[in-house]
């Protein structure tokens, strides 16, 4: 699994963001080794769509989001946003693109400057880019803060006076104030309680409708990703495993890794007793020395010798469902565990 390929990309013209063969590597000290964080990942997003990216920690989902923002610029591949190739831009040209792409981070409290007032935090983007005059900026700040549900009476306060959920609302206001088309949300609800999580997920849907946004939604919680996404990409160790519509992916996963992730979700229903057999064993291998061929093969219950020699390419197995696996699950087939050694490090 975890393969390359571009079969899942759609027409060149209609996508707002198109990422081809993205490559991100980090050197490890002076050892000459490198962390293969993201290797040959391609995807595209249509305008108004939400792409969900899921995977375990270390699968490269956050790095992918940051590489799209050119933070830092990727080692290889192309990122085309709204007709402009970001990967070819430098310095002031790249900076001029920044207000059009925004980001929301996991920890809402540490991503806001504790020493500034909320209205100044939200206003900063407008000030930097000299958008409108003073009065229209003030009006805009109040409008977006009102849209995210922050009482205008509290805009003189500082972040520590707000709860985690409210700080995440302020982060969302800060992101939409410069009228971006694309927002990359990196685990925006992972640090929040379930009740607040529901509020923020609903708010993101509202903001998407109100400001015509396109979202990249990165998270490790599969249920959360399903709730917001129009298309979901499953990643493992820097590679794409499967790309599909959420309803297809969750009811009929084709990649063994997608199936294993779904099987591991705890279900809030005491009738469903967790079955110890249905758990994916082992841990994610080191990204410094990823396995040959399919990167998932060391943990895959369906691995065959071919998986070690040949890297699978993404191919369409059902309409709109693309999978990088030599032996994908057939429709109706369930993943059976217990093949390979359960622990391999």
């Amino acid at each position: 699994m975890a393969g390359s390929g571009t079969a899942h990309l759609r027409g060149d013209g209609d996508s707002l963001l198109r990422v081809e063969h993205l490559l991100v590597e980090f050197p490890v000290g002076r050892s000459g080794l490198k962390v293969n964080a993201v290797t040959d990942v391609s995807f595209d997003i249509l305008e108004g769509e939400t792409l969900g990216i899921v995977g375990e920690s270390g699968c490269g989902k956050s790095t992918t989001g940051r590489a799209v923002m050119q933070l830092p610029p990727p080692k290889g591949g192309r990122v085309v946003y709204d007709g402009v190739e970001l990967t070819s831009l430098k310095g002031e040209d790249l900076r001029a693109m920044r207000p059009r792409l925004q980001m929301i981070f996991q920890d809402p409290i540490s991503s806001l400057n504790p020493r500034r007032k909320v209205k100044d935090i939200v206003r900063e983007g407008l000030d930097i880019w000299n958008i409108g005059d003073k009065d229209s900026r003030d009006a805009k700040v109040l409008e977006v803060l009102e849209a995210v549900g922050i009482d205008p009476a509290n805009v003189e306060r500082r972040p520590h006076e707000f709860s985690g959920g409210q700080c995440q609302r302020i982060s969302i206001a800060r992101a939409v104030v410069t009228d971006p088309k694309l927002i990359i949300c990196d685990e925006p609800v992972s640090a929040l309680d379930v009740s607040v999580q529901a509020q923020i997920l609903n708010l993101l849907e509202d903001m998407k409708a109100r400001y015509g946004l396109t979202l990249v939604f990165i998270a490790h919680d599969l249920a959360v990703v399903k709730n917001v996404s129009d298309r979901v990409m499953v990643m493992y160790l820097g590679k794409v495993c499967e790309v599909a519509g959420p309803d297809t992916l969750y009811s009929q996963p084709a990649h063994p890794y997608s199936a294993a992730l779904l099987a591991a979700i705890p279900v809030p229903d005491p009738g469903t007793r967790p079955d110890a057999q249905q758990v994916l064993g082992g841990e994610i291998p080191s990204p410094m020395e990823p396995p040959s061929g399919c990167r998932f093969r060391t943990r895959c219950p369906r691995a065959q010798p071919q998986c070690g020699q040949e890297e699978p390419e993404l191919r369409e197995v059902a309409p709109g469902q693309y999978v990088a696996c030599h032996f994908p699950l057939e429709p109706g087939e369930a993943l059976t565990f217990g093949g390979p050694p359960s622990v391999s490090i």
Partner: protein
Amino acid sequence: MTQPASAPTVSTAGPSEPLLQVEDLRTHFETPRGIVRAVDGVSFTLARGKTLGVVGESGSGKTVLSRSIMGLLPKRGTIREGSVRFDGTEITELSPKEMRDFWGARMSMIFQDPMTSLNPVMKIGKQITESIRQHLDVDKKYANELGENLLRSVRIPEPEQRLKEYPHQLSGGMRQRVCIAVALACGPALLFADEPTTALDVTVQAQVLDLMATQQRERFMAIVLITHDLGVVAGRADEIAVMYAGRIVEKAPTSVLFSDMKMPYTEALLSSIPKIEHPSHTRLNTIPGRPPNLVTPPQGCKFAPRCTYVQPRCLEEDPPLMPGTQPGHEYRCWFPVGTPEGAEALARNRADQAVTGGAA
């Protein structure tokens, strides 16, 4: 392949007495803003070998409850009242010195973040054998063997090698296994697991929860599993206590809680979780507002300001814990979910909302 690696727990209580009996436990903190009622009158019992799930939002007092039972809170600025009987002993009166015979040996704890709960400059082996050497009368060699068996029983590969390593050399899931091994070293009768899998990935979470269940069966150990995720406790706990504003607002055997929940808060909590079986873009139910301020909690029901069933009576009278129709079920609500009174209250509020909404 798992071997019992520790001495059996000696019980001083009769077999009929529950392992843990908490009665009207109150834990208040003195702060410059006033007295924070973090735990405000919690009672429950837990039998040997059983699991109690404690569920609630941040700030509901679930972590303070576990630390208060174990006596881990600083004495200064903390007011602790009520009774905690563990294995036949009243432990609220004991000094920290006396508690050392309990900590690690007979009750232990696993924390949320496995990195910060292990000592980064001490080898894994030392961290595991420390409590064995403290509580069990064994020599160093035997303690090391026990440590190796423990690591094997929590399914850490190459245990003899791992004993000589430091926490940073292990992954998050492996570190949490080490924490479990440390907690189990002396064969405690009671284990507190405070959000043990919140920092872990979903596949690793399933591995760690399965491991805890296996160890529980082998050792006949009671577990208090604290979490904000109802999905985690649903399949694992025998009984669930839902906490809100420092109190238990509903407590029931797991199957009863899910099939016959009475407390609007439990219902709201469960319905705010995105469900895998729902189509994408399903609008989520939310709980409006925030948990109450624990310095000056509202009069009446603490959940009333956020409740969809709220009636004038809820704002004035604090509901006591009332027994449900099924054994072991208790809840605090005047207008419970699934009863005629509850349905009537909800219908009245919906009608009022439609009127005010239409006027505005």
